[in-house]
């Protein structure tokens, strides 16, 4: 029983990470109708930069994480301005450009960081006794807390700030929003940067637990996309619920059915959703 609870909690932790990662994708898709294929690479850059800063430059781990997320955010702004903006209106080209970008970044990561998995230092150590039922690693608990914190921050951002209001206005009706004076170029740029930053923070948070490798970026992107489809495009709630469902299913599936095929559960869910309920759990019915 305690083993099951452990797997379940693992699923929750991964679920939180999935949710943040998916939020990054959902934000960009909802505002710009662009799928960032380089999402997975942003995630691993988050992990790698955080490692390099902490281990290579001796910067305290918390600061390393923040710096690496900030760096990816800035990178995202630049990418939106120079690569994505010119493709507005053409869904196909933005897909192609972000796909090419992902290959470039993947290979660049291989060359810069090498093919070996790296693990930044943990922020906390030891384990906690959960309700007397089982022991669970503190770093993992911290990761769950951080993930929840970020989700909370995003929800605040969307509900209370001008940025969030602009985002909601644009995703409902782009033309109306433009008429009302929403600077959609600025909003797009910040959204994309934020999307990349969310990916990087997911990577930075999970890296002390599961080391990052350059070849893992494909699975990360795919997982994020599956969560967004499952939860429903453009739905914040959907990312959270979908992320947790996928995280739990993958962990339980890997534990009890087969570890090699853990990613297949995501794909089966994707196909299932598309066949039965294409707009996902909370998306707009088409």
């Amino acid at each position, binding site marked *: 029983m305690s083993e099951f609870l452990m797997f379940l909690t693992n699923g929750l932790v991964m679920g939180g990470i999935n949710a943040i990662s998916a939020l990054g994708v959902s934000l960009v*898709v909802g505002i710009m*109708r662009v*799928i960032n294929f380089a999402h997975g690479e942003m995630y691993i850059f988050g992990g790698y930069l955080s490692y390099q800063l902490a281990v290579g430059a001796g910067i305290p781990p918390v600061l390393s994480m923040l710096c690496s997320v900030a760096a990816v955010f800035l990178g995202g702004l630049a990418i939106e301005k*120079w*690569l994505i903006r*010119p493709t507005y209106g053409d*869904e*196909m*080209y933005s*897909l*192609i*450009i972000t*796909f*090419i*970008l992902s*290959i*470039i970044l993947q*290979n*660049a990561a*291989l*060359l810069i960081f090498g093919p070996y998995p790296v693990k930044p230092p943990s922020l906390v150590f030891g384990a906690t006794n959960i309700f007397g039922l089982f022991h669970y690693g503190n770093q993992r608990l911290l990761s769950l807390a951080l993930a929840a914190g970020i989700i909370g921050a995003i929800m605040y951002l969307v509900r209370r700030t001008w940025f969030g209001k602009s985002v909601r206005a644009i995703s409902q009706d782009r033309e109306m929003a433009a008429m009302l004076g929403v600077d959609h170029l600025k909003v797009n740029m910040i959204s994309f940067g934020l999307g990349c930053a969310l990916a990087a923070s997911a990577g930075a948070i999970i890296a002390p637990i599961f080391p990052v490798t350059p070849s893992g970026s*494909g*699975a990360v*992107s*795919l997982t994020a*996309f*599956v969560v967004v*489809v499952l939860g429903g495009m453009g739905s914040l709630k959907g990312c959270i619920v979908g992320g947790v469902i996928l995280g739990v299913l993958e962990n339980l599936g890997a534990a009890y059915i087969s570890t*090699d*095929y853990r*990613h*297949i559960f*995501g*794909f089966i869910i*994707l*196909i299932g959703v*598309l*066949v039965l309920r*294409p707009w996902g759990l909370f998306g707009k019915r*088409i």
Partner: protein
Amino acid sequence: MKRAGLAGVFLIAILVPFFLNQYWLHVAIISLFYVMMASSWNLIAGYTGQVSFAHAAFAGVGAYTSGMLALYGGVHPALGIIAGTLLAGVLGLGLGGLCIRMGGIYLSLTTLGFSEILRIIITNEEQWTRGTMGLQIPGVFSVYSKTHYYFLFLAVTLAFLVLMRRLLNSDTGLAFRAVLNDELAASTSGIDTVRVRLMAFTSSSAMAGLAGGLYGHYLMLITPDIPSLGQMFLVLAMAVIGGMGSFAGPIIGAIALEFLSEYIRIYGEYHLLLFGLVALVIARFAPSGMVGLWEKIWRRR
């Protein structure tokens, strides 16, 4: 003028085995494989505007189906390749049927997922596929001869291209391009856009299966690299750099990039990165690729 040019190219193509050494003949054969792959991918991406990431996966379906049938079932490669083509087409029909209705993004995501899953299955089912070590399968000819393979590839590629050309000039091709230009206007003009896109997707996946089957029996060693995203990227880059949406673009892109990659091979790890950078620059600044640039220069005169 154009016919003379084509005849000249054809003549050169036939004479190739006589003035290339074995190594470069091999490169020529590989580039013909990529011509088939890039052209058929262009059919869906360049002509109907759907970016599929499952193209390399369908080639993998063709290669592994035909290879395993030959190895375990003693089936003659010619039949095996046909079986692989049909299976790829059926899977394409199924996959397309699932996601074409939902729009471009969903198609790209689903094909991406399909591609990764196929690669995972092939890698894991080592008992049958030998996973990453590769599966050794028989060749098409009982006596190995690169020249024979070259002519086989050339014949199939030419038949391929002729069929594609006729398709594109037909009413169906017109419908393809209408859907590419403006799907809404096409549908209110009477075009069944879902059916058109599904047809393009199915036939292109069958073509990838055919190319893959042939490729597998030439290499005689098939690995999960064939249905990988890395291969997918190469095909995409060739179509983009050569010129998506034009007929000659992917052909030129495939041949040019394959020969170029042989020169870059000494740099080892950098070659994908270099291709990526070139492809990115072209996609960003010259979306119609080399063919588009050429036409612009030609029109200026």
